[in-house]
């Protein structure tokens, strides 16, 4: 059973935290993931910084730009994950944009990721049909999970299709938004989450986008197996003098 599967089997109210690799400083990735795991985070999503992150708001855009300036790249991210894996056993996902994967060489990318201990991927601009045609077999044969997004506009039929072609979990985008949009969860969103739960899907679900604090996390957990926090965490790292302390404080306020 994969790490992701085991996590969903054994844990409730799963907290998945996104961080941008190489941010705020080049070498912080390893320490941040270690601290997240130590403080009870169930899963991490390591962002591969991209120059043109279409689905991301200013917080993740800025952290990505800083990380690229810091000199981060895919090869170095793989090295960092290898180091993380010496001490950390929670699932690690790589999140990024398709162009980076293409330039690295997609097959090589998946193989390398597997070899350093990555469990799955979120590549928002990789279309389902291209994935199915070109990569599904490879990813499945390596025992890795490809996670896809669904949104309030995704039709039932398409949700079922996405559910059948993906594994790990479904990433439920909470509203019409790019990352980092912050507000309370509205009744209309709760109706949407309930609707998803009634479809009867094979994959568990994590809610993301707009999850920023204890209140929104707890609400999300009532309607899914857990949730994903990204921009709010990145913001807390901005200008941090003591990474360990910052991570601990942030997670304590959520859990």
């Amino acid at each position: 059973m994969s790490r992701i599967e085991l996590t969903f089997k054994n844990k409730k109210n799963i907290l998945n935290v996104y961080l941008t690799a190489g941010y705020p400083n080049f070498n912080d990735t390893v320490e941040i993931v270690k601290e997240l795991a130590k403080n009870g985070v169930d899963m991490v999503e390591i962002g591969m910084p991209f120059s043109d992150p279409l689905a991301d708001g200013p917080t993740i855009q800025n952290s990505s730009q800083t990380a690229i300036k810091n000199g981060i790249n895919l090869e170095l991210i793989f090295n960092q994950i290898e180091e993380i894996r010496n001490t950390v056993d929670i699932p690690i996902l790589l999140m990024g944009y398709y162009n980076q994967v293409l330039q690295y060489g997609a097959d090589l990318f998946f193989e390398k990721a597997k070899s350093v201990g990555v469990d799955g991927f979120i590549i928002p601009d990789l279309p389902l049909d291209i994935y199915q045609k070109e990569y599904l077999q490879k990813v499945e044969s390596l025992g890795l999970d490809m996670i896809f997004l669904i949104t309030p506009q995704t039709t039932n039929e398409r949700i079922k299709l996405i559910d059948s072609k993906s594994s790990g979990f479904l990433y439920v985008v909470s509203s019409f938004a790019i990352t980092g949009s912050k507000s309370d969860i509205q009744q209309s969103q709760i109706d949407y989450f309930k609707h998803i739960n009634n479809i009867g899907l094979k994959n568990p679900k994590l809610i993301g986008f707009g999850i920023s604090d204890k209140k929104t996390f707890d609400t999300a957990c009532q309607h899914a197996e857990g949730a994903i926090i990204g921009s709010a965490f990145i913001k807390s790292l901005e200008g941090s003098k003591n990474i360990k302390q910052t991570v601990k404080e942030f997670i304590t306020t959520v859990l």
Partner: protein
Amino acid sequence: MNYKVNDQGFYGDFGGAFIPEMLYHNLNELKENYLQIIESDEFQKEFKGLLKEYVGRPTPLYFAKRLSEKYNTNVFLKREDLNHTGAHKINNTIGQILLAKRMNKKRIIAETGAGQHGVATATVCALMNLECIIYMGEIDIKRQAPNVARMKMLGAEVRPATSGSKTLKDATNEAIRDWISNPETTYYLIGSVVGPHPYPDMVARFQSIISKEMKAQLIEKTGRDYPDKVIACVGGGSNAAGAFYHYMDNEKVELIAVEADGLGIETDKTAATTQVGTEGIIHGSKTLLMQNSEGQITEPHSISAGLDYPGVGPLHAHLFKSGRGTFIGATDKEALTAAYQITKLEGIIPALESSHALAALEKIEFSSTENIVINLSGRGDKDMETYIKEMDNE
């Protein structure tokens, strides 16, 4: 070889729709409806009516006598600069605004580089009484000030894009982010043959009026409905797509696309995508783009804001790779020289973008009997500040 888009939205190896799920529904809606809507008689009637009465089409195909004498050949200028708002861009915005209206969208967003597409979008939004938001790179806002003022006067809100290189690429990112955040109310009115399917095909169809008119005008002027060469500048590639459209299958016509070399392709200050670019994904399309070995998109440079884009439409990537198109470049300086020359010879001040196409006459070979059409995509009013500043260097 087929140069039209296939069912999956590809031109050969290029195109497609590489977009996050958040835009799937909107693009699918567009994909399912655009052909049926734009091919309907009722749409065509309104579209053609507006192009004639409001835009001022057909634009002349002008035989440039003194320019022809200078180069000892026959040069015709397709006068897109004489369109309402001063460039070819309005052919596309008229088409898309009529589509948006039929899809009941009330809020229009667009990206702009030189500001020509922004002005053309703000214009049709005023005409149709629709809310209009234009994203424009902070740097472009400075270098194309007259167009910013025009957009505001037309009632549009101009939002600066402050990320990345602060030019067209970043304005496009911001427009896409806006669309993700407002998918139900908003129509994204893309300004070139770029972006995810069906945009490249749709924009090419709206711009194809350029070569359609050329055919009729050439018959009248030369007795043949095709020239030996068609030359157009390429930013995203919409004016070139329009000028090439009805000639793509006619191998007797050489299609010459002129990219912005900037300070030169041997420097890193260039926007010559096919020369220095590699295959990848930009703004939802698989195409050629300028990027480093890690897949980070690099910042282009051109003196002309409308050509300052690190990608090129998938149709052009296909024309390039298949060899059907001839791709050359003109530097900032060569474009300026061509601009001053045609101004003196023909009394036409061209847009900086179009000056790149004119510069091709210095770079290609032709005989004295050939007929060459240069697509004069826009006029130079917006570039006067640059022209005045550079005049002393001439």
